[in-house]
């Protein structure tokens, strides 16, 4: 009887708990959406700090697993032939595949190393260990965090171009918002800095994996295949980093800006190694807020 009453009580109180939990979630959500200062929530730091070791393990296991699967496939293909040939072939293919992997990794790492020479900024190399757990967004998690000197909003790049910026940090991992995200933006220019007046800003166009460039004057010359560089005016990316190349232009007029789509230079679908630039944008003095006719000596 007591158990029945408890069940009945639970059933009666369930809507109250529901409303309470929904209100808590709503409050947290509104608080999270309201703040646009770029600060991160301690809750995110904790969850990422706890999750990153497991994600690291999965990244390593999946790498090893795909190698094993590849070898099994090779083994089956050659099983129809004789045993000796099969073994030789499997060994050769495994060695070749390892050599190719090593060569491509070497190439990527060389690219990252050359970045330091090109940009002149210190960098932290990092490996992508996870992608956004929610299918609705497209961030990546890297295996370096605040303990490696990474800070919020630091730019993340590959030898191909910019990848995005750090939006959340834990001591051992960091979350990176891709430049293709609708909320990501950067100051950019078509062609060489100082050699072109085609200034604008780039932001993710969402679905297509392309980047949209806005506010480029319709009087400026822009063609398909032109490359886009950062200007450094956004206080996130240093000037002169490659963003990508123009793949579509709808030419504007004197009163209308060009509509430009850019393919990112970094291969964002196949990211494995990236580098975080330890870049601190130059401090900008706040503009004078007081009116010109106010006597400033009275304020002190």
């Amino acid at each position, binding site marked *: 009887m007591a158990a029945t009453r408890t069940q009945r009580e639970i059933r009666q109180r*369930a809507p109250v708990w529901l409303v309470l939990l929904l209100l*808590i979630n709503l409050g*947290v959500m509104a608080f999270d959406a309201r703040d646009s200062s770029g600060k991160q929530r301690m809750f995110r730091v904790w969850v990422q700090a706890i999750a990153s070791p497991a*994600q690291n393990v999965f990244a390593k296991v999946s790498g090893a697993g795909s190698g094993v699967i590849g070898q099994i496939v090779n083994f089956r293909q050659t099983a129809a032939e004789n045993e000796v040939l099969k073994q030789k072939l499997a060994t050769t293919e495994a060695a070749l595949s390892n050599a190719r992997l090593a060569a491509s990794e070497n190439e990527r790492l060389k690219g990252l190393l050359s970045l330091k020479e090109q940009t002149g900024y210190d960098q932290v190399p990092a490996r992508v260990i996870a992608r956004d757990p929610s*299918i*609705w*967004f497209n961030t990546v998690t890297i295996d370096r965090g605040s303990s490696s000197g990474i800070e919020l909003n630091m730019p993340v790049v590959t030898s191909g171009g910019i990848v995005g910026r750090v939006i959340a940090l834990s001591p051992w991992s960091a979350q990176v918002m891709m430049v293709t995200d609708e909320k990501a933006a950067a100051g950019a220019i078509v062609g060489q800095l100082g050699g072109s007046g085609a200034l604008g800003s780039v932001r993710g166009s969402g679905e297509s994996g392309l980047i949209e460039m806005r506010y480029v004057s319709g009087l400026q010359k822009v063609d398909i295949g032109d490359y886009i560089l950062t200007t450094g005016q956004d206080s996130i990316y240093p000037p002169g980093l490659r963003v990508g190349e123009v793949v579509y232009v709808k030419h504007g007029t004197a009163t209308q800006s060009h509509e430009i789509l850019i393919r990112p230079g970094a291969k964002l679908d196949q990211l494995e190694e990236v580098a975080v630039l330890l870049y601190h944008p130059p401090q900008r003095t706040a503009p004078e807020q007081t009116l010109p006719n106010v006597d400033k000596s009275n304020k002190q």
Partner: protein
Amino acid sequence: MPQLKIAAVLALAILLQLSLRAVWYPLAYIDLPLIVVVYIALQRHAWHALIVGTIAGLAIDAASRALIGAGGFSKTLTAYLIYFVATRVNLENPLMRIPVLATATLLDSAIYVFWHRALGNSPNVPFVQTMSYRLIGTTIAGTLVMFLLDSVFTERARTRRSFASRRKGARRGAR
């Protein structure tokens, strides 16, 4: 201790959800925490379902670029609605889990995306296409995962089955 089992299963589901997308991209379409939430709601434990829904949602939100609370809201509400239906309609048949999972996935996706759009943080993937893939992935995987969960929570399932057979026997006797 069912609470411990639930906590362990939930923690495993969250960790897998955080890691599997890096292994193979399409695995992200399977929402493992939602499957656990639906399973517990189908057991008609209101408090467990609501808490598991909130924790699962908040944990995934925190590891994602999503608004913290959006997933918690959608999973909590989904858990309650399934619990509400499960206490009034017999959903014990394993085949019934398929439409329940499908509905839960649709509901969860719709609420989740609604809050993001309402608060100016729209997801950057096509809604209908992503929701369809998620529906297929979660429903198929969920149906299989729930059999695994049955074996984890065997004692309870066995008790429920025995009560069901007693009820059947009682009905036959009454006739």
